[in-house]
């Protein structure tokens, strides 16, 4: 699994020469430069990096939430550079799931309503049943109508995981999914995430600074000084 940076037409996410510069004060600041990456269907990929390395910026670019200042990026076969923000949004609809560090649940919505949120964009006949099923699968079948503030951190993240999978996405991005949880709860969430991913056959791209979490992925990359480098299992263990 260490043969990184393969170039293959079967990749669902394909990036070359990807760079992001921002202006800080008067000076340009390079966050990412000349990145190359391919993500293949069904694989789990961890992107490791220290705090401030630009992991979230990269995730934003890969998911089409932000535009690179240089390079090419293809998602599901479509070049993101040829799409405007609305086009990129439509590309994501129903095909990309997200799990965030701070859960990003809407406080006025119940657990079930939060899970159903992505389905509201293009409702299905059985949306509600689907939402209930997924909440049951993450162990919250009895707490459908609870508001986020009535749930613990771990439970909130489970709702978020159910929400990420409810549309049967092809690709799930997870941004520090255990960052706000204690180690034991974090582990349970990771177990859940990986088991659901396996069952659904989804591709998972994980951004984390947690080596233990990265170890469980098929493949690891390290983001360092704006560049991506392959990382072997042993190094992760080190």
């Amino acid at each position: 699994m260490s043969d990184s940076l393969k170039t293959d037409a079967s990749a669902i996410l394909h990036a070359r020469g990807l760079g992001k510069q921002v202006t800080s004060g008067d000076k340009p600041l390079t966050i990412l430069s000349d990145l190359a990456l391919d993500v293949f269907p069904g694989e789990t990929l961890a992107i490791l990096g220290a705090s401030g390395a630009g992991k979230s910026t990269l995730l934003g670019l890969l998911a089409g939430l932000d535009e690179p200042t240089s390079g090419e990026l293809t998602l599901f076969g479509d070049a993101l550079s040829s799409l405007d923000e609305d086009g990129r949004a439509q590309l994501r609809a129903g095909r990309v799931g997200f799990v965030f560090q701070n859960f990003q649940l809407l406080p006025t919505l119940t657990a079930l309503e939060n899970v159903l949120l992505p389905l509201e964009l293009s409702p299905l006949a059985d949306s509600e049943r689907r939402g209930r099923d997924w909440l049951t699968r993450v162990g919250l079948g009895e707490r459908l109508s609870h508001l986020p503030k009535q749930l613990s951190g771990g439970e909130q993240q489970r709702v978020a995981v159910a929400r990420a999978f409810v549309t049967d996405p092809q690709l799930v991005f997870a941004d520090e999914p255990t960052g706000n949880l204690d180690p034991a709860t974090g582990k349970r969430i990771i177990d859940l995430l990986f088991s659901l991913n396996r069952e659904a056959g989804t591709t998972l791209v994980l951004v984390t600074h947690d080596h233990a979490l990265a170890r469980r992925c098929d493949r690891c990359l390290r983001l360092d000084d704006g560049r991506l480098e392959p990382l072997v299992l042993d190094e992760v263990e080190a």
Partner: protein
Amino acid sequence: MSSIADTSRPTSRQARGLGTLRWSLRGMRRDLRAADVRALFVALALAVAASTMIGFFLDRLERGLERQAGQLLGGDLVLEQGRPFDDGLRQELVEAGFTLSDQVDLVSMISHADRFQPASLKVVDDVYPHYGVSHVDLGDGIEQLAQGPAAGEAWLGPRLMQLLEVQVGDQVQVGETQLSVAGVIEREADQSGGFGNFNPRLMMNLADLEATNLVQPGSRVEFEILAAGPPEALTRVEATLAELRRDGVEVRDVRSDRPQLGNALARAEQYLSLAGLAAVLLAGVAVAMATRRYVDRHLDTAALLRCFGATQRQLTRLFALQLLWLALAASVVGALLGLAGQAGLLWLLTAFLPLELPPPGPLPLLLGVLTALAVLAGFAGPTLLRLKRVSALKVLRRELDPLPASAWLVVAVASLVFGGLLWLYSGDPQLAFGLLAGGLVMLVVLWGLGALLLGGVVRLAAWLPQGGSKRQALRLGAQQLARRRGASLGQLLAFSVTFAAMAMIALVRGDLLTTWQDQLPEDTPNYFAINIQPGERDAFIDTLDDAVDERTTLYPMVRGRISAINNQTPRDAVPADARGDGSLRRELNLTWRETLPDGNRLVAGQWFDAGPALADGRVPISVEDGLAERLGLSLGDTMTFAIGSDEIVGELTSLRNLDWDSFRPNFFVIFPPEVLERYGHSYITAFHLDRERDDISRALVREFPGVSLLNVEAILGQVRELLTQVTRAVEFVLGFVLLAGISVLYAALTASRPTRAHESGLLRVFGAGDRLISRVQGAEFAILGFASGLMGALLAELAAAGIYLAWFDLAPRIHWGLWLTLPLGGALLIGVIGHALSRSVRRQTPMQSLGLLGEA
């Protein structure tokens, strides 16, 4: 696995649209839990309630007034000419939907035994009266009768009874027949037939007219058709009426002949419209404030949805639909409130308005819903666009909020929409534009003034000597206001406008009421003495002056007919539709005066003493502006009057505006002295007599039997009653405006809650106790309220002055009390409401309050 995009997902646009529709409905239902949405709801409902209430009310009042005018006229349409009407016209009127009643008016000598007296005969048919009842004493006390006298009978006015010395049951000679006196008329159901010639009244049945043989060629007889019917009937015969007017028929209808109570009511109507607009403006400000919070709260939702694949279009649709549901729900609630409100207004005016008013029409309701949508679009639109511009990246980087809508854009769009509403409500684009432009200039001035005031407050607080928790709270409060400069300035402006609108409506109310009270003071004349002969003038005046404190000037009165205008026959000289005008068909009361009478206002030309001398024996005359307008006369035109066998040519040298509601003798035409003296004349005056001093009036009648005393107490009472009721209506509406003002306070304070929670959380972390935080918040609100009150007072004074000059025809004045009450009241009101609304914020732990920012 396969993408769900290829399987069960319906892709049709229609299904997606339906989904958004349902989703938006669910979203709005969920959102009703949030304070800002509740504030939005309340504000919109108030806007709709205000506009529908006033719309419904004015609509019904308008129709009620027509009904009342009909009652005074004796029908919805009255036609009058010197010869009988032909059957073709009758046929046409009946086909148009009218019920007809015939009436003949003439003056004839009536006798009983050896007493003879000219009387004004009102000959009515069996349909009479169309509306209302006559108050007649048939011998057993006064009864209300919806009919005229039966054939063979006559009803006489009390004065005629007295002059002829007859009792009920006696016979009187009318022309060649005898009629039995069956009743004494206290009040006629209508004022048709007029009392212009001041002869006492006799009412008889049309069936007896032929037997009197009074209608002869050349005799002065007026034939009238009194027609009653719906407004549509009047519209149907409009063309015919225009033709009749050209033929010299006098046409009066409920639209053109409003009761003379009009002036007070017209002002009240303007006041109500103004108050309605103020309520709508306030609701708009509340909507703008609540929308800011609504948008802030939904930024995360929008970002998440962007992340999950929502397009800008979908987001716009979603939030627009959500708010549309809110507006519609608020419209329903507002319209119900408006309906209830107008019922309340009508209830306050029941004694004045006829009971069976037509039900409210649908138009005000439509206007109400339109108002809600317009207010929402105008006051919330630009702010809402922010949701559409949210970047999906915000889910990863919380600080990435879209720029808030430019304050100028918000103000510009809101002004545009409000200007449109002003136009719609007033139907006067010039007024709408003027008010709008003035308002915007004021806003810029207030903005600058507000910035200066805020800066001053902070500097003042910094000056306060250290020590003392109250001073510390005041300083901290001022600092917090200064730190949130932009938001504070926004609130300051919103509160100023709110206070100004509330104060202005209250000021205008107060000044209107004072004007009304001044207009009809306690000693307003309630008696007119007419027909005072020159020989008895001095004796009468001496007797009168001994008995009463005050009377109006004694005016000489000469009767004359307009025989030519600009040397043409009047018919040819006046506009076609004025050919049947009453002034051309009857004798006018002419008077002479050296000075302009009290209550008259010169609107064109110069009074006799200042005007140029006229050649050719023409004399200068002063004419009432309304008459001049109807007859198409302007300064320099001539009018020839036939007085007896003489003719006098007068040239218009001035036009006067009269206050017809003043209960003083008023004249259409005034001559200078030394022109009319040589003709037969009598005098008229008016005076006030307390109700319990009937003995004086009886004594006057006894001593001067030739003088007619006209008691107008009943009409005066009616006007007074109307003013009292209109006053209550005005107060009711004022209450509504105050309610709208409070909704602004609620919306603004709700909107700023999270920021305050964050600040108090921080203060708490740094060791501040409950007491200090409570005082700091109280101080901050009080300072805000004080400054807003100060600016509100300025704005209210300017706006009220503008409105007085433009609308109410009142002189502007400075209201000193306002400058004290508004700042102090503002400090108290905002201090108390703000402090109370922040209570839940103060109860939170620092953890909660610091986490609250940016969430629900």
